[in-house]
């Protein structure tokens, strides 16, 4: 028994160590942003079902930065083919990619991630600024140049133009990808505008701690984390008519009969203003393709083409249903053309 076990062990080790060089990969490997993950998952699954001559791509999560780092590790079968990212690749990252031999990178924009603030349809019009959101919802705000626990209880204490409502906001929970946009584009921006960042630094915090302090949300029950989907937020607003909820743009548009949307910095959110980049609380979502792998990894080109097809990222597609803001028709067409022509960064 001992000798068979030993034999099996030796064989296992031998297989393990010889395998690396021998096997050709027949499965696309994707890594990166957890915001893009649900979209990439839907596309990967549908791709695997539609093309049964290709295997379903493997999609790892782990964040944009980690994904791009893996992506830039080099060219070859044991490196990933695609990096999902919820931000454009940085020039330093492109440099490190080049240093590792990943010279030709194709950028693909899949659409936008946009969040809106909405209140019950019967309420007054809302015009918000990031600063208002910060002052109403941050854990600590600036009073007389110092950070103190947030004393505001009503919206009109934050900004006299806002109604005399108790602060009750239903915001995406920490598990949500949109939470990042909320933190980055509203709390952090508002924090800078209100002087919170400086006050935090003056209070002896380093850069990182100051940024973290800016995006900390108050925990006294006035800002409620919603971990479910937007329908839960909608139900909360229905039961509390003076509540403010955060929704995906697509969800708001489907429920425009019940919700009134707030402007941010004076811009009304819409597919147009988001796609043009005017509406501040949105960001484009990308993935990056290693050109050297096209034609080497089976199905890679088909996968990208399939992703860019209107049946995936169009206005009436599964991804739009899940919350992606489709880019305007012309921009989608442009993305397809750019990919087909092999344009690299």
């Amino acid at each position, binding site marked *: 028994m001992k000798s068979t076990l030993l034999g099996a062990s030796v064989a296992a080790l031998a297989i393990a160590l010889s395998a690396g060089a021998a096997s050709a990969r027949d*499965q696309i490997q994707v890594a990166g942003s957890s915001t893009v993950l649900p979209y990439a998952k839907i596309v990967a699954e549908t791709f695997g079902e539609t093309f049964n001559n290709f295997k379903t791509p493997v999609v*790892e999560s782990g964040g944009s930065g980690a994904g791009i780092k893996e992506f830039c590790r080099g060219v070859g079968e044991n490196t990933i083919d695609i990096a999902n990212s919820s931000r454009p690749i940085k020039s330093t990252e492109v440099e490190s990619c080049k240093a590792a031999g990943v010279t030709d990178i194709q950028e693909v924009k899949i659409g936008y991630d946009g969040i809106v603030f909405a209140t019950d349809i019967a309420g007054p019009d809302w015009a918000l600024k990031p600063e208002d959101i910060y002052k109403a919802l941050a854990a600590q705000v600036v009073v007389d140049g110092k950070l103190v626990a947030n004393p505001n209880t009503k919206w009109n204490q934050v900004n006299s133009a806002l109604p005399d409502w108790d602060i009750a906001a239903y915001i995406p929970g920490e598990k949500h990808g949109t939470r990042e946009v909320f933190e980055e584009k509203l709390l952090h921006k508002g924090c800078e505008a209100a002087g919170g960042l400086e006050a935090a630094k003056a209070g002896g915090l380093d850069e990182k701690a100051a940024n973290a302090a800016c995006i900390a949300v108050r925990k006294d029950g006035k800002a409620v984390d919603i971990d479910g989907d937007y329908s839960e937020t909608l139900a909360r607003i229905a039961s509390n008519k003076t509540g403010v909820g955060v929704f995906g743009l697509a969800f708001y548009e489907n429920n425009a009969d019940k919700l009134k949307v707030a402007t941010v910095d004076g811009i009304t959110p819409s597919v147009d203003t988001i796609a043009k980049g005017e509406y501040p609380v949105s960001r484009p979502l990308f993935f990056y393709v290693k050109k050297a792998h096209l034609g080497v990894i089976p199905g890679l080109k088909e996968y990208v083409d399939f992703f860019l097809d209107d049946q995936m990222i169009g206005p009436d597609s599964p991804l739009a249903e899940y919350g992606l803001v489709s880019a305007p028709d012309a921009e989608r067409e442009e993305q397809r053309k750019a990919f087909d022509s092999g344009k690299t960064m």
Partner: protein
Amino acid sequence: MTDIASSGTLIDAKAPPRRDIGLKRRYAAERRFRIYGILAVSVGLVFLAVMLFSIISQGYTAFSQTAVTLPITFDPAVIDPKNERESDPTKLQTANYPALAQKALAEKLGFAANDRAATRQLRGFLSDTSRVQLRDIVMADPSVIGTTRDVEILTSANIDSAFKGQIDLDVPEANRKVSDQQVGWMRKLSEEGALATRFNTGLFTNGASSRPESAGMGVAIVGSFYMMLIVLLVALPVGVAASIYLEEFAPKTKFTDLIEVNINNLAAVPSIVFGLLGLAVFVNFFGLPRSASVVGGLVLTLMTLPTIIIATRAALVAVPPSIRSAALGLGASRMQMVFHHVLPLAMPGILTGTIIGLARALGETAPLLLIGMVAFVADIPSTPLDPATALPVQIYMWANEAERAFVERLSGAIIILLIFLMAMNLTAIILRRKFERRW
């Protein structure tokens, strides 16, 4: 305290004095300690009970799934409207199969689906898995086109949740994911017996999916199995060999002491560090494929090795020296002594240590994160070189899903993992009981 003289007189007088030995106080202390002990045990038990109750009460429904049996007519006008299947067989692959199921459902309900709103209601009732299911039937036997046969189609996750009573149907229609019309259909089909719950085999056989109703642990179970196999085949022989050498053959020098200290330290290293090591060594240096269970297995082997070495050495030390002396005295070589006498006697301890090490490895996610095993993998891996996930990884992935129906699947997955762990610990106990020798 008292002087000798007075104590002498006391002895002479009558009964010896009772020294104050704090009997009462000591008994009270013991009673208090017992109460503390019982409290500590009950706190542990209460937490365990609460955890098991919440997991099982939320998760047991994941093992059943709602399906509806429909007489599907494989209508050539839907599957192949231009009659091109002779010339272009790929047409059969991309046909609109869900439409067949929706049509069959509409007919079953005696309802005409002629506008978009009604179609959407029908589409929301049935799972999109019907596409693959019906396509596979047609691809396997194209002669089915034009005939009618009963097919069991899964309902969508929302209908499944509603049928299991997990969606509050008292809230206004607009606030829930199932419409009143769909609930009416569901009740009607259920009365007719067409719609019912059945055992959810897909939970064990399917890979990951973005649709809750077709999501399963298949990839994770296979991946975990491969990894455990690799850990067993690599870590057990290496660990046992190392400990036998260190315990029975190696001279006791400063150097072997250093090795011993290092092995003990290694057992306490956080598992994420092994993940980093695995990425650097196995993926980047040896060029093994990312996300593959072979890399996961090797990383977990590194992690389990110290545990196995420590357990094996303890088991070897526990074998009485008289056995060794007797073997050597009868003329056995050191190697014969070890392999004929010491090792068989130490085996139960070694196996117990190994199984406990394996159980710990089975529950690890952190080292797998860096080697790409925390991923969406839909295809069941056929060899350890294919991408795979692991049981705890699948639990982690489902915990991050937004859909309601993943909540019960999450708890169901935890139940599966707990059953695996319990089975392993039980095996360890049985082995120990069976082979244990006392001297």
